[in-house]
């Protein structure tokens, strides 16, 4: 790979005129209106907004889980609209690590197997899979639970496992939709410390959705959504009036 000057400054996310509507029984309901957002490598972005403002819809599109109705999205320089479903699967596997509010671990599998799961779809050999899964579990401080099942550990620990799974393919971008939404304050702070460390030490771009001002405070940049429109996009420090919690 040749890291030229041009690619070095290539945005991780570039979105232009992104529009999304849902088709319901009552007709087409617009949810996101002509959004323009660019996220550069190494940024830590918090997305806030009231419930129903379209945050999850936006994150799902960013995570290539859903597609926009109109508009353009370049992920890591690739035009997402031009990718086949196999190529999208590949992007989800290689470029993105997605962290859900509800953890979304496989209940039957051990923590180790859960973390190793993305590697199966890259054709990594079993021994290496398990070694890397263990490394990631160690990184989030859960190495000793490698053989446990998700229901044998706490919610905070489950979210750490989910983060380890998101990290196992060394993604450029971590997308987290309300990752602390199901956790108590203390645990939330631990998880946010982990995201901060990933962002600052490993240089991973982080975009996360949250309701809470103090969670958003961990980020450098704040994007505020209201009714599918971006009403603020700038540094967290100057956004006092946009930071009130919306829970």
């Amino acid at each position, binding site marked *: 790979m040749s890291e030229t000057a041009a690619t070095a400054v290539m945005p991780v996310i570039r979105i232009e005129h992104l529009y999304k509507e849902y088709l319901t029984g009552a007709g087409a309901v617009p949810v996101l209106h002509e959004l323009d957002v660019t996220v550069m490598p190494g940024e830590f972005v918090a997305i806030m907004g009231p419930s129903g403002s379209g945050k999850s819809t936006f994150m*799902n599109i960013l*995570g*290539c*889980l*859903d597609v926009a109705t109109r508009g353009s999205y370049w992920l890591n320089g690739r035009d997402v609209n031009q990718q086949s*479903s*196999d190529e999208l*699967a*590949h992007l*989800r*596997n*290689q470029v993105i690590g*997605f962290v*859900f509010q509800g953890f*979304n*671990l*496989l209940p*039957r*599998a051990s923590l180790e197997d859960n973390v190793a*799961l*993305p590697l*199966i*779809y*890259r*054709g990594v050999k*079993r021994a290496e*899979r398990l070694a890397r899964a263990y490394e990631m579990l160690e990184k989030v401080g859960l190495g000793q639970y490698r053989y446990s099942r998700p229901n044998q550990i706490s919610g905070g620990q489950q979210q750490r496992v989910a983060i380890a*799974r*998101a990290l196992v*393919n060394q993604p450029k971008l971590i997308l987290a939709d309300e990752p602390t939404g199901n956790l108590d304050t203390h645990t939330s702070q631990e998880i946010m410390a982990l995201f901060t460390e990933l962002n600052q030490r490993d240089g991973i771009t982080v975009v996360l959705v949250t309701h809470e001002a103090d969670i958003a405070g961990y980020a450098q940049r704040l994007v505020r959504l209201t009714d599918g429109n971006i009403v603020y996009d700038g540094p967290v420090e100057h956004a006092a009036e946009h930071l009130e919690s919306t829970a």
Partner: protein
Amino acid sequence: MIGAMLSEAWQAMHANRMRTFLTMLGMVIGVGAVIMMLAIGQGVQQKVAASIASMGSNLFIILSGSTTSGGARMGSGAVPTLTVSDAQALEELPGIAAVAPAQPGTAQLVYGPNNWSTQVYGTTPSYLTVRDWTMASGANFTDSDVRSATRVALLGQTVVQNLFGSEDPIGKTIRIKNSPYVVLGVLGAKGQSLDGRDQDDTVIVPVTTAQRKLFGSQFAGSVRFIMAQAVSADAMPAAEKAMNELLRQRHHIRNGEDDDFSVRNLTAMANTAAETTQVLSLMLGAIASISLLVGGIGIMNIMLVSVTERTREIGIRMAIGACGRDVLLQFLLEAIIISIIGCFIGVLLGIGGALVVEKVTGLGVVVTVMSIVLAFSVAAAVGIFFGWYPARKASRLKPIDALRFQ
């Protein structure tokens, strides 16, 4: 990759043990039934084939009778219209290899304290040739025995067992209808005939002895039937025609009058019987295959339920990078594993069942490698065929829809 998928499939099946077992059961029963039915069918076919082989080859039977007396037609064999000289004349025909007249009757045999009632055939030495019958010990009687109507007998294996036990019967004298007969030889074992009679439960004596001393005959030299062997299968149609013509001529039957005899191609009849059993055993297999089909539909049902139930899991897998093909393979693999393991158990069960049938009914069963290969490939095909639709359904889900599924 495949290794990881296999172990995942195994985990999924293990997590739903009861359901997996029940799904498999459909397959087990289907395959077991096919294997068992084919084994029974094969057994019957082999038995029929053995009976046919024991009958003799290229064989005709000419029955006397079927005359019209006073407007009432008599059944075949009811009136003895055939004679030993008819048999001798038939033997001269081209295409005919050997001919034996036969005068059967039932008689009580006694040897020492033992007695036994059986079918006694009066015939000529060529009877053994016509029936492809060998001697187990001793010797056949000769034409001179026929000429002088001597009291000699050949015994079938069953008769030997019942009269002599382990004693050697050769040269011993038995009593048939209270007259003494010297045992010249013992016939080789032939087993059951097509109609299920024990062919070894028989005694053979010179035809003249039977006619004059044992049963008598309606008029001098008459016999109930004649057996004739053609030189080859190809020669049979011409031989049949020639025999009909010769006998009509010898019996002075004018054109337009009914025959007082009937010529039957035993080999053709036997082949028809063999074909019938073949069709029957095919039908058994076909009926059993339906249960295989039902088993396959069972797999499809369960896989569909499983896909619905695991929609969220599919969503998670897709979110972390599984493509459609990965999901398809995962579910397909589960269906195939279930059908192959089910098939394996089914084969064992089918063989076991066939052996039980053999024990209980005494019917021979034959499990062929062919039937196992067939059952296995059908099971695999059923697994793929019925697993395909649910697996494809799973693989076509959109990640977000799968994730949102409650």
